[in-house]
């Protein structure tokens, strides 16, 4: 793989992970995530790229020491299981997460450690060690800036907090290009919780008057809800839109696979074909993550006769897929 492309991809992966940690309280470099948050997905993303910047692993460690109780173990395990089924590729991809959560020594994390455990050698110390001077912001500031964490503190970690969080964002979202609704099917596919928990919680929230049925709309048998706007003054979402971060985890796995597939390959047609496949699958994942960069991506995939397309052009398309994602998440694309 051209080293320059590999470096660019890694840099952008790091930027995406940093922007999410910056939002969750890290005093890191770069912009902040302006869209929805997802601590469980962020742990996986950090585990994947942490060896390239060990400060991220340190941040993850410190954040977990303070906020491990705000992580949904159920949701994290669902993510890991789904990724296993879909062939993660390298067995040691989440080894840094395994090491960090093992050291927490907290019983409820044991099932995650077991799930992450594999026979592979843990390669934790490879990569660049950088000085870590500052880590997390104050608790008050973190909670003030993160509605999801606030809700999890208030209602406990689980569907209740996350459904209210999702509903608040979707209800307030200025643009809704993916037509996200506050309905059971949309919430199930976006939040990755058990379907029956979603249904039960929606009923509870409707009875409590937190969600109201929108009688003008209905999709099949499924109710569509609206969020009651005067429910608590603290329930104001600053998140510009809802993003399914699990799609970004899958995108990172795709990047790892791409790096592996074209490592040591010299034949241009193989590299071009792999890049094109990445663009096709990556665009689909971006779309499924509700990241609206259709204009950037429209001409990138499904190219005929790669012989006629320059390698540089394909490489820039791959880079712009990731930079477009970063710009969308950090709100740069919105202004």
């Amino acid at each position, binding site marked *: 793989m051209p080293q320059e492309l590999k470096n660019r991809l890694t840099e952008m992966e790091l930027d995406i992970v940093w922007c999410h940690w910056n939002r969750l309280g890290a005093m890191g470099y770069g912009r902040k995530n302006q869209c929805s948050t997802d601590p469980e997905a962020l742990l996986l993303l950090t585990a994947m790229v942490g060896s390239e910047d060990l400060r991220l692993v340190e941040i993850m460690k410190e954040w977990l020491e303070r906020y491990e109780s705000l992580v949904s173990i159920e949701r994290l395990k669902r993510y890991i299981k789904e990724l296993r089924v879909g062939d993660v590729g390298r067995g040691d991809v989440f080894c840094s997460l395994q090491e960090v959560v093992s050291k927490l020594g907290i019983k409820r994390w044991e099932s995650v450690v077991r799930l992450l455990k594999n026979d592979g050698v843990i390669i934790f110390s490879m990569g660049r060690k950088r000085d870590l001077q500052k880590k997390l912001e104050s608790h008050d500031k973190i909670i003030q800036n993160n509605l999801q964490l606030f809700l999890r503190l208030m209602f406990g970690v689980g569907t209740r907090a996350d459904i209210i969080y999702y509903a608040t964002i979707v209800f307030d979202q200025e643009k809704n290009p993916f037509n996200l609704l506050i309905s059971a099917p949309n919430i199930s596919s976006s939040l990755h919780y058990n379907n029956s928990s979603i249904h039960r919680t929606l009923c509870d929230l409707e009875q409590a008057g937190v969600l109201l049925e929108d009688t003008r709309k209905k999709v099949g048998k499924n109710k569509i809800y609206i969020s009651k706007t005067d429910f608590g003054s603290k329930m104001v979402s600053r998140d510009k839109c809802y993003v399914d971060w699990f799609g970004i985890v899958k995108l990172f796995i795709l990047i790892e696979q791409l790096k592996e597939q074209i490592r040591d390959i010299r*034949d241009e047609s193989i590299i071009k*074909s792999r890049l094109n496949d990445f663009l096709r699958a990556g665009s689909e994942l971006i779309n499924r993550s509700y990241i609206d960069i259709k204009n950037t991506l429209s001409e990138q995939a499904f190219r005929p006769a*790669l012989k006629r397309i320059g390698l540089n052009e394909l490489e820039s398309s791959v880079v712009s897929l990731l930079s477009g994602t970063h710009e969308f998440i950090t709100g740069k694309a919105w202004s």
Partner: protein
Amino acid sequence: MDHKEISLYLEHLSKVYSELGGDFLEVAICGGAALNLLDYVRRVTKDVDVISPEELPKKFKDAIKITADYFGLKQDWMNQGPVDISKMGLPQGFYLRCKKLQFHPNLVFLITARLDQIHFKLYASVDRGGYHLQDLMILKPTDEELTMAANWCFSHDVSAAFKYLMKDFLEKNGWKNVASRVEK
């Protein structure tokens, strides 16, 4: 694709397969592509038919896809459409008669020889007619060759109906004496 293009794609496929680290492999090609490569016909063909092996290795399939992407071909430009024929047994001496085409040390294309093409084309002509019959005519089979081919076809389809269709086909296309021989 014409003769020149088929050769170009096979050469590229060989290069890619080699770069992917594929193990030694022999791939037998039949149909229009083989007829083109042996210069029996000049007509363009839309795909390259692989008749053996039954299971193609993953790296070879990968190389087919990469070649398709590179030249803008259909993803199934090389396919195993006729592979069922080989499951029932290829004509005796098939591999010995094949012409070898090799661009890289670890991949050999076996181009189906004229006699075996007559076998396959007769089977396809009785079954589907159309351009298969044209191809069969171009190959100018002798009565002896057609008799051999018909007997091989009967080992693939043992039904009385097929035997009737074969006889009818041979009679209608000017091979009455062959029809009377295979009838026995």
